């Protein structure tokens, strides 16, 4: 079964384009404008981060942005209410940590995403082996659950993991937390290739992509990339929506040129 999020990515891919998904920390100052700028600059989908107190998968940039958002009073409700007002013409996912879904209960959390026009969820601390109860509820509500595949994921689990993924398969590019790196890790194309070998779902590389050139390199194998920390750093450095738009344009152009 494919939902609207995955359909949108599949149809972009079918048109010969590499996919560009970007992450924006919800609740950060003017984050809505950054989402709109990213969409206008050619992003194919947006991940809206709901800030969490203990973002264990995130490196310093997204940690800092999350803390600033929390200090400004961001809550799941405030971020989702604002998200509901966004009309970018591209699909929206949320990226957050599992306790924010566990606390209200799977049903209520899924319903709150639906109300906000969100069609996919990424929960990096809910690994495949623990994800079935959430996926069942999410799927019924029409929320696609992206699964993360890591360089360490053994072959015997990768097939099931990719089969369970909806929206896309998030190929974690390296052993580590989110953040830009000076070179693309060789694990990035390896995990992308391993995923591509077992699924026809869109496979996107995230974690560790630090430049448009690295994005192009990852896309020699992957269907696309996820850009998070590089974009959030624009927000942290005060470049706002304009800086975000320019950054996304550079990635878009690089991917389109190939």
């Amino acid at each position, binding site marked *: 079964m494919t939902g609207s999020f995955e359909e949108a990515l599949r149809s972009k891919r079918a048109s010969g384009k590499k996919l560009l998904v970007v992450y924006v920390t919800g609740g950060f100052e003017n984050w809505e404008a950054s989402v709109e700028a990213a969409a206008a600059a050619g992003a194919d989908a947006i991940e809206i981060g709901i800030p*969490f*107190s*203990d*973002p*264990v*998968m995130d*490196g*310093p940039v997204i*940690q800092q942005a999350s*803390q600033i958002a*929390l200090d400004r009073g961001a*809550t*799941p*409700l405030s971020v989702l209410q604002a998200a509901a007002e966004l009309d970018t013409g591209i699909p929206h996912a949320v990226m957050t*940590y*599992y*306790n*924010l879904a*566990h*606390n*209200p209960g799977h049903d209520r959390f899924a319903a709150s995403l639906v109300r906000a026009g969100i069609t996919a969820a990424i929960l*990096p*601390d*809910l*690994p*495949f*082996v*623990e994800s079935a109860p959430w996926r069942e509820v999410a799927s019924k509500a029409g929320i696609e659950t992206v*699964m*993360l*595949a*890591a*360089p*360490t*994921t*053994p072959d015997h689990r990768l097939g099931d*993991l990719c089969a369970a993924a909806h929206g896309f398969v998030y190929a*974690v590019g390296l*052993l*580590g*937390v989110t953040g830009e790196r000076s070179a693309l890790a060789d694990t990035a194309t390896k995990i992308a290739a391993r995923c591509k070998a077992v699924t026809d779902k869109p496979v996107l590389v995230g974690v560790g992509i630090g430049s448009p050139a690295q994005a192009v390199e990852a896309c020699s194998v992957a269907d696309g990339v996820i850009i998070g920390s590089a974009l959030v750093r624009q927000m942290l450095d005060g470049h706002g929506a304009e800086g975000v738009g320019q950054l996304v344009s550079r990635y878009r152009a690089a991917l389109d040129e190939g």
Partner: protein
Amino acid sequence: MVMIEPTSGGRFGKFGGRFVPETLIPACEELEVAFREAWADPTFVDDFHRVLRDYGGRPSPLTECFRLSNQLGCRVLLKREDLNHTGSHKINNVIGQALLAQRMGKTRLVAETGAGQHGVATATAAALLDMDCKVYMGAVDVQRQSLNVFRMQLLGAEVEAVKSGSQTLKDAVNEALRDWVATLEGTHYCLGTVMGPHPYPWMVRTFHHVIGDEANEQCLALTGTDPDVVVACIGGGSNAAGIFSGFASSESRLVGVEPAGGAAVGRGIPGVVHGMNSYLMQDEVGQVQEAKSISAGLDYPGVGPEHAFLASIGRAEYPSVNDQEVIEAFQLLSRTEGIIPALETAHAIAWVVREAKNLQGQTVLINLSGRGDKDVDQMMEILNVDRVV
């Protein structure tokens, strides 16, 4: 039967599990397999007990508190984990994990620490076994436990002050997990308590089981029967898990004492963080709250999943005591028995003092999990005592 092996996937009832990023799942699986093999290997188990005996100082004695018993009206026995090498029960788990890590071919240990006791113990094991060691400690805790920071450095460990989030134990756990995600191949995460993803809660309790086993035999030898009550303080819950496991199948009442400002079980809201489903202090939407008490070692907003399970089935109870009661208990034990307890441990004593009227004539076994040398500076400030020049 309680306090046996968790069910597959590491569940204690509905609690436990393995809620970590996918990258770490294979590492947890590898650790579980390695631990099962090692614990079934008599050579490993012998090594573990030999190091605890010859290096750690086990068995730790059982001390009968004649003066305190007289004052309180109940028979108070102390399991003296404060007399272990490095001054607390923490050494049991650390020796077990360090030997296991070495057996797995790892050359580096990372650890989180709150008060610094687990950090010191890990640094000690790393020195003993010639391993690299990095300890993450919240910046706030670095301030309040500067002596322990220096002890870790003396032992050759690198200490990093964690400045994210609340800058306490929970953030140190986050940072240690982030380190481990990036360094899996040669690094073992030496988790300090019965929390985290499976197999940690079970493995750490197993390494601390020796506390309960010894205490059970010692109580029997001294009193001819099981104690009426077994009491221990609870942060993550490792010393409590160790002593409870020796009495889980007895009739003894099991009491885990939480700090009022960190009463994860007391508040009873299930949550998922740091790899486990357990009781967790959190706000109304699920953001993890900062635990606040007089003792850095108990300032953890969660609790080991097996304690959540024991609470949920009513096998153990988890009351809390406030800082003032702890300060009084700290001084009471020092003056009546000549034993300065860790502030963490003083929570267990404080509960016994408060409940003494309901414990008349009973035998109460307290796990004296650590010594209080590290807390003396802090107590001088709290009690407004000037240094004698």
